[in-house]
């Protein structure tokens, strides 16, 4: 009875019985290949003396083998579909983190041909904090601007008091004012 159900599902899904596993397996194989390529310039050593390349290369082959097994499983065992990815969460949450990284001490790009260019000046926690908090808040579907602004101001003040004043971590708060 149960077997019948499974085969029905399997037929409707065609060749790939578990899209999630298929994707996972292919990812692992691709990662293995990338590592093999990245470690191709490293010496594998000689005889008893393993070189810097032996361990990574050995792992690459193992990864590809395991990826192969997962792909094989995806073709034979019925499993879940690949879940949909949401865009809002990753974009705003990780965007907020990137903004923190780029503003806390400024960003300098090294563009070939032009040289080192300042993209952003060091802004410190006093600017990076509210920016990070507000952008991160956009990831949630609920919106209340007043609350968000008050909250980010209070939270930033709290972080400055805790990390800079109380714990004395060397994090720049307002580098343009020498703090």
């Amino acid at each position, binding site marked *: 009875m149960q077997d019948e159900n499974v085969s029905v599902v399997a037929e409707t899904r065609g060749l790939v019985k578990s899209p*999630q*596993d298929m*994707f*996972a397996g292919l*990812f*692992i194989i691709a*990662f293995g290949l990338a*590592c093999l390529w*990245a*470690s191709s310039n*490293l*010496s594998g050593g000689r*005889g*008893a003396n*393993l070189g*810097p*390349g032996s*361990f*990574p290369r050995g*792992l*690459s082959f*193992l*990864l590809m083998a*395991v990826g192969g*097994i*997962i792909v094989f*499983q995806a073709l034979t065992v019925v499993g879940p579909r*690949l*879940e949909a*990815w*949401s865009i809002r*969460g*990753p974009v705003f*949450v*990780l965007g*907020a*983190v*990137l903004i*923190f*990284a*780029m503003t*806390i001490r400024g960003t300098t790009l090294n563009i070939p041909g032009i040289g080192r260019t300042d993209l952003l000046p060091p802004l410190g*926690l006093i600017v990076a904090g509210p920016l*990070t*908090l507000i952008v*991160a*808040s956009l*990831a*949630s579907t*609920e919106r209340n601007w007043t*609350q968000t602004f008050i*909250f*980010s101001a209070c*939270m930033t003040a709290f*972080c400055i008091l805790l*990390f800079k004043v109380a*714990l004395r*971590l*060397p*994090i720049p708060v307002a580098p343009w004012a020498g703090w």
Partner: protein
Amino acid sequence: MDMVANLALGFGVAFTIKNLGLCFLGCMIGTLIGVLPGVGPIATIAMLLPITFGLDPVGALIMLAGIYYGAQYGGSTTAILVNIPGEATSIVTVLDGHQMARNGRAGAALGIAAIGSFFAGTVATIVIAALAAPLTRVALLFGPAEYFSLMVMGLIFAVVLARGSVIKAVAMVLLGLTLSTVGQDLETGADRMTFGWPELSDGIDFTTIAMGMFGFAEILRNLESPETRDVLKSKIGSLLPNWEEMKRSVTPILRGTGLGAALGILPGNGAVLGPFASYTLEKKIAKDPSRFGKGAIEGVAGPESANNAGAQTSFIPLLTLGIPPNAVMALMVGAMTIHGIVPGPQVMEKRPDLFWGMIASMWIGNLMLLIINLPMIGIWVKLLKVPYRMLFPSILMFCCIGIYSVNNNPFDVMITAFFGLVGYAFIKMGFEVAPLLLGFVLGRLMEEYLRRSILMSRGDWSVFVDFVNRPISAFLIAIAVLMLVISFLPAITKKRNTVFVE
């Protein structure tokens, strides 16, 4: 009697005003952050690591241990009051703990969790003190081959204990090992897999992976499902369990402590298994198993004791062998390294004050949890009512400041964002991240021991399974293979799934 003298030395170190204060502060902040839903001990410790940088090594480790216990206990509080397990080990507590809360016995559930944890912590402290010296002597018998085999066994354990597909967990371990090779080669100094980025030649920082994959990815996952947090609205009631409940809890606490302590010693995150094992055992031997899942106090007392016992005995592999058995202990390695201490058998001899002081502080930390948490439950409840739309930006902010402060380097923050995305992709592909972290942590050591073993055996790869000359190594590999084979057997696979579903 050495043990008594050693413990006395330890208590002498821990019982200074400063160290007591640090222990207290650690427990307090640890609980504060650990209570937040979706923030487990790994993220908590990674976040709070920088605040211990300015302290002396003894104080820093005492404080970190306090943070760890606090985070653990905070997770249990969330599990009981809200229907959300903070992390893997408190999943079981949710089952009966939250039901008890619904029945109006929230106070008793919290109380017995604290009492059970304290008892388990006391026993575990004695176990550590008793086992540390003999195990350190065993460690001295270990050569590179034995260390390598032990780590293989640890990783296999982690694979077998991970939720979901075994083969996918193997893939994660391998991925972790591969990531650990990024950066300069220890022997030749050659840059490996850095793609020419100078920022990567020091290797990838463990905190960035842990925070990205556990902290950020978890936030992304939580944002997807609309919030259903039902914080207990009724009264918490008296924190002291009544006489009947006490009587029911005594033997589960004893059994849970035993199970948890024993499983915690295993390399490869055996501590995770403690609460599950305890719950299954209590349910099996109960006179009326149907009470479980409806608010049976045994289902809180046993697993919580097992949880705390395991959390503490998992220090044993780290302190005696220098091998972190799980991600939390890996963070401890990071903290110790920052203070110039290389974990391993030599710590006990070279820094007895630090070693025994930390062990003594474990017990003090447990006592403090009991004293500070019970009166502060009201505050934790208020904290649990903060809506997620304000909670997650704050968590994000703390994470950013934490990562930045490890090396004062904004590049680390960017790498973490990248790992957050990777962690999110892993969730979508059905991968469990914990094995990856362990692989990453053990990777460098493993490679070093592998290369040394092969060098010493003059290229003979059979050195690891040589039953005549290297019986310990061969034995460890045999256990590892056996475990792996068993985990692939269909009957076990089925059982394994039910254990984790329950």
